[in-house]
Structures are given as C-alpha cells and as structure tokens.
C-alpha cells in the first residue's frame, strides 16, 4: 500500500506543479499548451545542470531561468504578436522537445538517456518509508495552498482573474492585462521547471529524450477538469496519476494476460474522460467555433 502511495506521489507531483503553472496562466486568460515544452526544458536543464555544476540548487536555478525565458518568448509571441496561443504553445512544446534532444546530442553525441549523479534532495529518514521522496513532494501541499491563497484570497488574484476574464475591466481600473499575462506565464515557467526537475531528478535522476510523454498536455487537461481552481486541478492531476499507478499495478499483477501497451494508454483515456466530464458539467471553457481562439482584448 505504501508502495502504491509512494508511486502515486512520485508520478503525481511533477504533474501537479505543471498543472499549477497551467492554472495561473488560465486564470490570466492564456491557454498554455507550451507546458509540455516548459516541463521538458526544466527536466533537461536540471539534469545537465547537475552534471555540469554538481550542485542541485544551481541547476534548479538555471532550469527556472530557462523556463522563464521560454515563457517570456511565448508571451511575446501570443501577446505582442497576437499569435494563436494554441499553435504557438504547440510550437514551444516542439522547441522544447527538439531543443533538449539537440542539447543532449550536442553534448554526448548520442540520444541515449543521461544520468545525473545526484537529484532533488530527498526528505530523509525522518519520514520513515517515505524517505526516498523528494523535497518537492513535501513542499507540494504548501505550494498548492499558497497558490489557492494567491489566486482566491488576494487582490492580486482578483486582478489576474479580471485580466483573464474581462481585460477591459482590468484596464479600466488601471491594471495592464498584458503585464498580468507576462507575470502569470513567468510564474508558470518557474512551476513548470520544478515539475520537470521533479520528473527527471525526483527519483530516477536521469533525463531521456521525450521523457515528458504528454504530461504537459495532461496537466493542461487537469486545469480544465479542475475548472481552473488550484485545488480542483491538483485533485484532477492526482486522479490521472492514480489511474496511471493502478495501470502499472494491474500489469504487475496480471502480467502478460493484459496487453501492456494498452494499459499504458490508461492515463490518456482518463484525461479524455476528465475533459469530457467537465465539458458535460460546465460546458466547454472555450467558446464554440471561436475561430482561432484569440486572446480577448477589446
């Protein structure tokens, strides 16, 4: 049982951090489909940074910086150049996946996985069987709670939401919606970097090409499933990782009786289910036939 909990926490934690990045962007009115790309940049930069500097914290700072830079690029393209957020987000994702592959190949001359000597600091023996979990797992409840306070219990959160929902209302009280979007995307860059770091260096301490395998998109789906609420989205993200963990568990129990490749599809199916359910319950968050879903700004 404890094994199961640990495996859920391990697979769920990176997803939740990236989901929170999506939540804050969604609050500011940006559909961030670049999460996948940010996450893999975070993962790759952390592992390579650890290898080069030997220090996790320096590596983490580099990863955050790079993800903020990528977020700023995304902001520039969709806010200043009015590009379509969905396509631009997919572009950023492609840049992340391709760029990290290129970086690994440039340094190691091949595309095999890269191992780091150390990873995210673990929480230690004080926590008994949970000792091998990383500090980011421990920090998670505080981060989620902090995000909830920030978005739902502060004036800043209201202004962010106003900038997303009704940019004109924000402008008419002197809030610059475009700057709010930048702030939200930069904060999302930091969170996605943590998510990527946790994925790569939270337990295995390695980076492999394309290792996010759709987790960024799942995080995006968790934002929808969780109605953009920090806690709801966190629960949605954990729901996806529970499904995934149960799939692995089923595989271990039944062995070859179940096609193992199809069990791997379970989290993706769960994601579709989650998005379907939230569409059913609340109607789509995005307006129907809304052309190219451009940022609203009147």
């Amino acid at each position: 049982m404890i094994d199961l909990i640990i495996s859920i926490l391990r697979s769920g934690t990176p997803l939740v951090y990236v989901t929170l990045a999506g939540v804050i962007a969604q609050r500011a009115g940006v559909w961030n489909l670049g999460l996948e790309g940010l996450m893999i940049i975070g993962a790759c930069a952390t592992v390579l940074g650890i290898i080069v500097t030997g220090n996790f914290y320096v590596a983490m700072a580099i990863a955050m910086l790079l993800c903020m830079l990528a977020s700023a690029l995304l902001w520039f393209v969709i806010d200043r150049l009015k590009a379509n957020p969905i396509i631009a987000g997919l572009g950023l994702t492609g840049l992340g996946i391709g760029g990290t592959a290129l970086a690994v190949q440039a340094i190691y001359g091949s595309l095999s996985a890269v191992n780091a000597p150390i990873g995210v600091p673990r929480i230690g023996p004080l926590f008994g069987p949970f000792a091998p979990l990383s500090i980011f797992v421990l920090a998670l409840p505080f981060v989620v709670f902090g995000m909830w306070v920030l978005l739902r219990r502060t004036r800043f959160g209201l202004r962010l939401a106003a900038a997303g929902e009704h940019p004109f209302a924000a402008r008419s009280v002197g809030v610059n919606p475009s700057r709010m979007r930048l702030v939200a995307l930069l904060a999302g860059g930091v969170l996605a970097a943590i998510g990527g770091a946790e994925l790569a260096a939270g337990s295995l301490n390695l980076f492999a090409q394309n290792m996010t395998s759709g987790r960024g998109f799942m995080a995006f789906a968790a934002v929808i499933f969780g109605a953009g609420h920090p806690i709801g989205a966190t629960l949605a993200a954990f729901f996806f990782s529970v499904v995934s963990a149960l799939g692995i568990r089923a595989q271990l129990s039944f062995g070859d009786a179940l096609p193992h490749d199809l069990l791997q599809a379970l989290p993706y199916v769960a994601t579709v289910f989650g998005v379907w359910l939230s569409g059913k319950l609340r109607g789509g968050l995005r307006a129907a036939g809304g052309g190219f879903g451009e940022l609203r700004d009147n």
Partner: protein
Amino acid sequence: MAAHALACRAIGVTYGSLKALDDVSVAFAPGQIHAVVGQNGAGKTTFARVVAGLVAPSSGSVEVSGNSVLPGNVAASRAQGVELVHQSFALPPSFTVAEALEFGFTGKGALYSRPQLLRRWQSHLAALDVSVAPSARIRDLPVEAQQGVEIARALVTDAKILILDEPTAVLSPTGIEALFQRVRRLKAQGVTILLILHKIREVLAVADTVTVLRGGKLVAGPLPVADVTAPLLATLIVGEAVAGASGDVAAALGAGEISHTAHRGLDSRPKVADLNALSTRPDPEGPALAEASLAIRAGEIVGVAGVEGNGQRTLVRALAGLVETTAGTQHLAGVGSEKLTLAERRRLGLRIIPFERNVEGLSLTSSLWENWVARQLVEGKLLSFIAPRRIREACDRALRAWSVRYETSTQRAGSLSGGNAQKVILAREVDDDAKLIIAAQPTRGLDIGATAFVWQSLRAAAARGSGVLVISSDLDELFDISDRIVVMLSGRIVAEFTAPFDLGAVGAAMTGAR
C-alpha cells in the same frame, strides 16, 4: 474664480485615418452635473475614455483641479480622483459583487478572508444605497443592479470626478429617474459629474450645463442648461438636417415631443407569426420565456419594450428555434413551427437582424459577399455547387440597391462603418419573400442618418406586407415606428399598448408597477 474641476486642452485622438476627437478644448466647473451630448460617432465615449486615461490622446492634455495628468494612464487619472462608469459595464461576470468592488480598490487589505471581504463592501454598498448582496454574482444581476454596482465600483476610491458613459441607455424610465436622483445626491456631496447622454429630454431634466460634440469636434459648451432649448440643442447635435426625416430626427434625439403613429387598423390581415402561451427553457443570456402570447400581422410593426435581460433575447431565440420550447405553440406564416429548424423557418420567410451586429449579424473578417450570401446558402443544399463570380455580381447589385458605401464585394465586413454594416444585414434580411422580420436593437450605435434609414427601411418592408418585430431598449425608437407595443418583464409579456403611446404607462409596465 475657482479652478476648473476638469480642463481639457486641444485633445486629439486618431484611429488610423479617422479623427475620433479633433482639437477639443473644454473646461468644467466643480460640483455640477455636466452633460456631454452628441449623436453616435460624435466622439463622446472617446472623450470620456481620454479623461479616464483609457485612451491615450495623440495630442493635447488633461488637467484635474489644476494638476496635469499623465495622458493615457488609468492609474494616474484614478489617483487624481477621476472614475468612469462604462456603458456596457466593466465587471467580470464570474466575480461576486464584493470581488468586483475589491479588484479596483487601492487601499489596505490586499490579503483577505471571504467574510472580511463581504463586510468591507457591505457598508460601502449600503452607504451608496445600492441594494445588492455583496455575495451575489455579477452575471446573475439584472442590468439596473449591475449599473448600481458599476457606480459603486467607480466610488471605491475617493472620486472627485465621476463620468457616466450613456448610463440611461439600458434603463427604464423609472430606472432613469432613480439614477438621476443618485447623481444629484453625489453632486450634493461635492462630486463633479460628467454625464454622457444622447437624449435631449434627459439633458434638460438633470444637467447644469451641456456640451455638444459633433464629428469629433466641440460644437458648443459648456452652456448653462437654463439658456438652451430643445430645438437649439437638436440643431447643435445634428448640424445640417437629415433629408426628409425631421420626425425621425426628433425621435432619435428624444427631443421632448414623441411622435405618434396612428393605429392603422391591421386586425384583418393574416398573422405572420403567432405565439400561443409559449414557454421555453432558460437561455444563457436571459430568463426563460413564460407563457408568452403574441401575434404579428402582415404589414404591422410590433415593438417589444422592456429593460434589457427580461427575456427579449429568449423571445428572439424562440422565434428562431434556437432555444428549446417546453410548452405552448407557435406558428410562422400559418405553419406550426415549434419543431422546425432555423433554416426551415427561414425558408418560410423568417428574417432576423440580430442583437449583436458584429457578432451575430456579420462575420467581420469575412468578405461582404460571403456575409451577404450566407442566408441563401443555408436555405439551399450543403453540397450544391456555387459560382462565386455570379454571387459577387448579385451581391454588388444588392448592396448598391441598399446604397451601401463600399469598395468591392471582397472587402472585409469589418472595414465598414456601423451604418453601412447594418445596411449589409438589411440587404441580406429584407427581401420580397420576407414574411416576418425580427429587428433586434436595429439602430444601436448608429448615427442619426443611419438610424432614420433603418426606420424607413422597416416601414417600407411593412408597407410591402412583411410583419416586423422590433426589439429595442430605446422607447423613443419604439414609439416612433411601432403600430403596437408589448412590454416584457421576467420572460413574460405583461402589457400591450396601441398607438398613441404614453411614456408613463409603458414605463410603469416595464418595471411591473401598474
């Protein structure tokens, strides 16, 4: 002499090649109610937004109480005590009232608990006599309450100058009276009020001074209201006369007198639409229709009055078949139509000029010919072949017949002015096969010339035998063109009047006070 509360010097605003404001210099004395009037497109809203810092002027400067204000900066204007109440309210619909008040607040308490927030704004609302629960969601509020919240939002900081942009456009006559009371109270507290208006009657009722804009230029003002008369103001607002439409101009300006169309005795004509105790599901944009009965006869113009959000949109959707009906019957051109799709209804002769011209009426990024031909394509088969060149030629003929000013049928609809855009919709929706024409807010945002054109077109359509249903929140408009007026309240049709109409009686029906 006391300093001016607000002084604007040589303000100019250009959008592309259009001069929205041109060298406007005007100063307002403190502690008074100043009306700024002009027809649509005269630059009133732009003027208000420049003063509030929402629009950066390309030239000129603004001074508040003698201090010059950083142009195009809302925070700077707000710091000087300038607040703007928008025509279409700037309140995020998902916010609660308390949140909507809080997010523009600049004082202490940026971190709060929910009870704190409610308490903080409960007293503010009470002090302003706005009777709305602070925990209510904006999207659930009727428009008059939303306006109260919007005014309360503008007063969360210590406002010295309050600008209200066309605040009366969405209100019932009683709502307008209540608003004027509120404005007078604020004036008594020393707030300088700028009221953007376009009805002369309202100017004369509430303002101390009046300033007239026309075509982005200052025409006159501020003139003491005691020194002006309705005809003088009308002349100032319109400039040269609009050909052959003096009655319509007076109606469009709300210049006191209301013209009366005599009831034309159309009772024997066939019914083009007949709703019998029709009820619907609630619509996302308003209440459900509740046992609405309404008949429109060929050649008749029926007006629908009511404060916005009382089921007018649902009524149009019900006639269009875009909302599910739960009880009752409806007939269109004599055919039972509850089960028909909109395309089938259009084949029977239903035409719709929808509420939102730029969203529901036209695709602004599509070409004129595509916009124009859409109805015919929908009525035909999906896979039928088309010849674009021939369609463009037919479109050219139609647009010319409706005297649309345009360059080519391949230009985007968004490049036309409001009046010309509405003419494109008329060219599509008003034809000889039209049995019932629904015209929802057909003149909103149009200048007086275009308004008169739309009215004349609808009258002509009725004269050719179409039934016309006009939905408007402008009673002057309804009084001017309707043979009969029904009043909607909470999804019901609560009263019916025939010409000549009485403003007091219709206004009372709109708020349910009989």
